[in-house]
């Protein structure tokens, strides 16, 4: 472990690497497994449904569900509701991020702000969202703004609380290093606290997405606005339209998995130093 001089200066990293042979298909292996896995799942579903072991009213054939999705898009019953839900959700999420991150950072950085705001934040963060529906309907009626409000109220607090936790758990020895090497107050924030908090912010947004989706659905199911995926779900239930019910559930699952996965991708991009610590 004395002076390590790279043999080849052209490679920036001195860590020795050797080429190993990996199957050409290796990158596609997990995708292939997922596809086969899902295919088998729907096949078994179809077989169970065809055997009529369970009442078709509760358990339609997988093929009937796919047909409902196809027809729903073809005759224009799904698309307007889907786009309404997605755009509503995205607007709500953006509002939550814009409010949640700065307030959370402020609460983490300032003891006074924390003391003043925390009772409200914690009350709102722990209160079941459904409880707010009657009040919000009273205030805003069955308007779209009521649906948007419930999304924001669901998503903003987890974002806030996580940002606050991030600032509060900054490694004290990094702060000491900052002092030794002369960071100003501003530099302490921009160079130590904010980068340290970034993974917490992303985790908060992740939770915000999960909670926001719940908010979106309860707003649409109970808000009586007459639009969105929740409305579609409600109507399908009333009409005993099981294939449509399942179709909407699948769409919701795809939407949430897509959002969560893209956040995970972003998280790994934003904090590459953390991945060895976890996986």
């Amino acid at each position, binding site marked *: *472990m*004395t*002076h390590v001089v790279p043999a080849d200066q052209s490679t920036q990293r*001195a*860590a020795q690497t050797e080429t190993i042979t990996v199957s050409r298909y290796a990158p596609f292996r997990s995708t292939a497994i997922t596809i086969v896995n899902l295919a088998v799942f729907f096949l078994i579903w179809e077989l169970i449904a065809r055997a009529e072991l369970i009442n078709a009213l509760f358990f339609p054939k997988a093929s009937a569900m796919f047909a409902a999705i196809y027809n729903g898009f073809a005759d224009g019953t799904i698309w307007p509701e889907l786009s309404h839900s997605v755009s509503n959700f995205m607007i709500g999420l953006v509002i939550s991020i814009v409010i949640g991150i700065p307030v959370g950072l402020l609460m983490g950085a300032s003891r006074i702000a924390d003391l003043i705001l925390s009772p409200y934040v914690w009350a709102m963060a722990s209160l079941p969202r459904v409880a707010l529906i009657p009040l919000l309907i009273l205030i805003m009626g069955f308007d779209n703004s009521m649906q948007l409000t419930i999304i924001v109220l669901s998503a903003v607090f987890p974002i806030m609380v996580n940002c606050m936790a991030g600032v509060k758990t900054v490694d004290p020895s990094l702060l000491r290093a900052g*002092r*030794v090497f002369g*960071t100003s107050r501003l530099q302490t924030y921009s160079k130590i606290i904010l980068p340290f908090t970034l993974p917490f912010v992303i985790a908060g947004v992740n939770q915000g997405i999960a909670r926001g989706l719940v908010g979106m659905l309860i707003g649409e199911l109970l808000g009586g606005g007459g639009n969105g995926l929740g409305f579609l779900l409600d109507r399908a239930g009333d009409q005993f339209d099981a294939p449509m019910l399942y179709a909407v559930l699948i769409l919701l699952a795809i939407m949430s998995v897509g959002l969560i996965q893209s956040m995970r991708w972003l998280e790994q991009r934003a904090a590459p*130093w953390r991945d060895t610590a976890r996986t």
Partner: protein
Amino acid sequence: MVHVGSHQTDHPAKERASTVGSTLIEAVEVSAGYDNRRERTRLIALRDISLTVTQGEFLAIVGPSGCGKTTLINMIAGFVKPLSGVVRVRGAEVNGPGADRAMVFQDYALLPWRTVERNVEFAIENRRGYVPKAERRRRIADALGLVGLVGFEKSYPHELSGGMRQRVGIARALVGEPEILLMDEPFGAVDAMTREAMQAELEKIIAETRQTVVFITHSIDEAITLGDRIVVVSNRPGTIREIIDVDLPRPRFDERNDVKRSARFGEIRSHLWALLSDEALGAKSGSVTQQEGETR
């Protein structure tokens, strides 16, 4: 607990290379402690410490854990204000951290989102006084060369071993060319083999850069092989138990002259051992009074 008044042994002016042995760091009857507001007590970590460090000297500090060694180095760094007494660097009272002092931390304290070279750059980018980009590049390259990290500029700390991370920590401390290098158990978290190698390299580096070093350690051997003088700190509240001159020739990590096997090394070692085991036993029997809380 045996009461030992703080005292200071005279030592001959150290002649290291071209540096003159003038006083660089000076602590005068310094006490330090931490307030526990909930219990309304103050834990006294250090009591009446008086100490001088001459320019170019390598001062090792040993003592039982919790004796306030870190508090002492933190006061020199400017993090901790003394309750009484004064710490001066070049005659001026320490009022906070400064560019003349850099620190190497036991837990490295590297920014995990920065590459090795950007971590080193951290030491010279914050304080006022613009350093041109090219000059910075050169100094970073020099510092990384000094600690043997050429080729790892673009690596992230999590990709490096503990020993290599601490090399980054040392490069970061050296790049600003501080007069004083404060090292708080820098090799405490690296394995024994790497530790020996890094001690040898540190001696070589310091011989080249001629910093004044204050070095905290748990290891008696490390203190003797590296230090010009060794300060033995007693149990909490820490007082100076003794200051020992290490009159062993340098370089100490020379194959032809194995300092560790010399008779003098053994003498100093057993003397230190006696002192420290005395303190360790004192810590046990004195555990009841160890709180040393002073109600305010």
